């Protein structure tokens, strides 16, 4: 099968999933429960995507856990997105270097 047909099918599916709810529901939802629900979607979703997946994204559980903890501590200090991501990457890198010698 032509790879561009596959790519187009993937792209179109993904676009429709994003586009339809954004264009079809333009009025403010009055229902209080639904509005609260939608407000809480981002944090609930990002959390579920991060943990425990982050633990298994590196070469060992330990480096994944340390990357996770470092990201939390640096976020609590109020650092920017890039800073948190960079510190987390650096922590994973250093931990794996150290684990090599153990």
């Amino acid at each position, binding site marked *: 099968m032509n790879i561009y047909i596959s790519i187009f099918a993937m792209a179109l599916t993904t676009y429709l999933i994003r586009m*339809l709810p954004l264009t079809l529901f333009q009025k403010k939802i009055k229902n209080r429960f639904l509005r609260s629900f939608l407000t809480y979607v981002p944090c609930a979703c990002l959390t579920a995507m991060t943990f425990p997946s982050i633990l298994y994204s590196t070469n060992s559980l330990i480096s994944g856990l340390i990357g996770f903890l470092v990201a939390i501590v640096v976020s609590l200090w109020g650092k920017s997105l890039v800073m948190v991501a960079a510190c987390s990457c650096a922590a994973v890198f250093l931990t794996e270097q150290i684990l090599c010698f153990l």
Partner: protein
Amino acid sequence: MEYKIGVWDGMPVGIGYFSVSFGFGALAASHGISAWDAAVISFSNLTSAGQFAGLTAITAGASLWELILTQLVINSRYALMSLSLGQKMGSRIGTLPRLIIAFFNTDEIFALAMARQKPLTVPYLLGLGLTPMIGWTGGTLTGALASSALPLMIRTALGVALYGMFIAIVIPQARAQKSILAITLISLVLSCLFYWIPALNGISSSLSVILCTVISAAIGALLFPIDDEENAQEALA
């Protein structure tokens, strides 16, 4: 002005995307996909998990319907996000800009847009999407071309960049609001259950993300319904 602020706010995501999509480019190259094709995938799809799954499906010779179904399941969380973002946009933003903005409503851009204190404007949202799109496509291209040059250790470490960004978005909100903290913890516990309880871990990770999101956001909406001040003010105005 709003456009510039958007570009500036989107910059960290753009940089983060570059490092993450570098991994995608490298993976695509190792599966025999050309650097150009990998970049086309990234530019047209702009989604991390969906692309990784799609790449696996394509190289495994899956049918078109399997490919579409995979995207539907993995990316259905975007439907929730778009619904949520649409509410925040309000009636000021019309259909045409929505058609464009929908294209780059990724997890991170969505999170940034929702975290903005001021009302959303079209220039701001368009600016927000600029560097992430460049970063995601450019990183894929670079990764596909240069993957062999970088040591594995560095590539592995870059893999947590995206998670780091997620954490950096959630933590400040959880710290500021008890309700968000509670919902975050509920989602965390549910996610662990889906991952580690033998009877439940047959559920795919994409479906598990959707279930965790829906259950914990619903519990949150029941326990901590948001007040209607905003609506009242709009009615007065």
